[in-house]
């Protein structure tokens, strides 16, 4: 169980996340929605402390994770894996090494500096890649892959961490609809088969409705909605998105292309931010 107690983030002049208090039980798939700049990313990046909270507390299974430091902090980051909008893979290394880098926390200083990975780690990484259907590119240089392929490699890297929580920061915002579906399906599968908690920032409403157990809506750093997809009425959604409502609701971009079984790939690539 992940508990948020009045968690706040303040940048120099603006408050990105106003005191947020809520609880995420284990095994839930949560979608955080809101217009760009609503504080979704900041909230997510505070969970694994890539952004430092400026106030409040986070507890995981009763352990205070806002106070972690040094090795404990890195252990926590290893426990809650993250998938990024821009994949954040090392382009010049091959796919396998990128995936194996998910095990770096378990390495000692010298083996990680020398870049030595054990046979067990190699086999494990290949299994993870295989699960996402990417084992065939294991030895390619990573920056030769397409966006959708890179995101699947990034998920494989997250998987070899053997995390308990998976954070996904706009995982499909840089992908075309077909690849977006593949990636979202993979995240849902991880949630259902492995029982991982998945917390996912999403820009489009329909994706959140379709894949998540629970939706959290944010507006200017405040949580304005917290409930099941069913409870999220059109009126509530319009409130969350404000001026961007038409954009987020545009059916052609999202629901049609993401309808399970829809094979018609749209050439347009949607990039948020």
């Amino acid at each position, binding site marked *: 169980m992940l508990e948020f107690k009045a968690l706040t983030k303040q940048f120099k002049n603006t408050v990105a996340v106003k005191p947020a208090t809520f609880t995420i039980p284990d095994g839930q798939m949560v979608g955080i929605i809101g217009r760009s700049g609503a504080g979704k990313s900041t909230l997510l990046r505070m969970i694994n402390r890539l952004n430092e909270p400026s106030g409040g507390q986070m507890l995981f299974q009763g352990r205070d994770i806002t106070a972690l430091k040094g090795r404990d902090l890195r252990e926590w980051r290893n426990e809650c894996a993250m998938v990024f909008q821009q994949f954040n893979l090392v382009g010049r290394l091959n796919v396998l090494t990128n995936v194996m880098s998910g095990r770096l926390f378990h390495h000692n200083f010298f083996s990680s500096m020398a870049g030595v990975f054990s046979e067990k780690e190699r*086999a494990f990484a290949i299994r993870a890649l295989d699960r996402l259907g990417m084992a065939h590119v294991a*030895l390619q240089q990573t920056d030769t892959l397409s966006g959708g392929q890179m995101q699947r490699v990034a998920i494989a890297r997250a998987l070899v961490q053997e995390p308990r929580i998976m954070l996904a920061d706009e995982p499909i915002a840089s992908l075309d609809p077909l690849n977006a579906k593949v990636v979202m399906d993979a995240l849902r599968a991880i949630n259902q088969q492995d029982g991982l908690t998945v917390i996912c920032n999403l820009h489009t409403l329909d994706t959140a409705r379709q894949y998540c157990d629970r939706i959290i809506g944010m507006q200017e750093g405040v949580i304005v909605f917290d409930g099941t997809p069913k409870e999220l009425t059109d009126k509530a959604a319009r409130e969350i998105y404000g001026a961007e409502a038409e954009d987020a609701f545009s059916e052609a971009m999202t629901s049609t292309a993401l309808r399970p079984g829809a094979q018609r790939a749209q050439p347009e690539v949607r990039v948020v931010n």
Partner: protein
Amino acid sequence: MSTLTFATINEADVSAARKRYPQAFGNPLVRALKIGSWVFIAVYLAWSLHVFEIGKLLNASDRAWQLVSRMVVWQDMATWQYANIYRGIAQTIAMAFLGTLLGTIFALMWAFFAARNTMPVGIIRHAVRRLLDIFRGIDAVVWGLVFVRAVGLGPLAGVLAIWISDMGNLAKLYSEAIENIDRKQVEGVRATGADTGRIIRYGYLPQILPVFISLSLYSFESSTRSATILGLVGAGGIGMIIIERFRAGLFDQVAFVVLNVLVVIAIIDWGSGLIRKRFIGERGH
């Protein structure tokens, strides 16, 4: 699909994965080569440091400490003859300026003989290039020593040394700039019916002049650096003051002079950067 944990990976899983993707487990030859080259570098370093008597460092701590402490503690600052110091620094800048200027003028002449598109005769081009290699290949300090033997101690030898080595460096860079010229722009000017003079004025000059100025400015910066040490061999400038006072054991004064020189060099770099930006724009390199 069952979930898989790292702990449950066993030999069978490894060998199954190895069977499907043998390359993923690394090529032993490549690995040996990689380790071998690192070992080679390590052994080379150990051997060469041994040959260079690295052990001397252990006995040096006393002298080094004495040196550092005397550099840091400044004594009798009233007797330091500041006028001499700043005159020396001024002389250093003057030497660098004159040397670079003369080097630039002469390099302009050599460059057209060394560039492929302005000197079609291969033998002359190669002869000029080899001559330039000699000017460049010998460090300014060596030239300084040679000219001190030829014309005696003093800044004249320093100016000559910077002149010669800048001439070699600049002529090579200039000739490369001339070779990299964009023919299309020249064609464009020619197409308007311009005569030879105008083709040079409007076709060639606008392309090479900014590059030339920028290169000469860089050359002036690096010449100031070499001018500071030319004095070590007696070729004028601040270096002469540094080595005199070093030999006399006045390490605090040496430290003071070197600090001053660092500041002056920083100012010159900054100023020359400003001029470059003002006249050539950011893209001039």
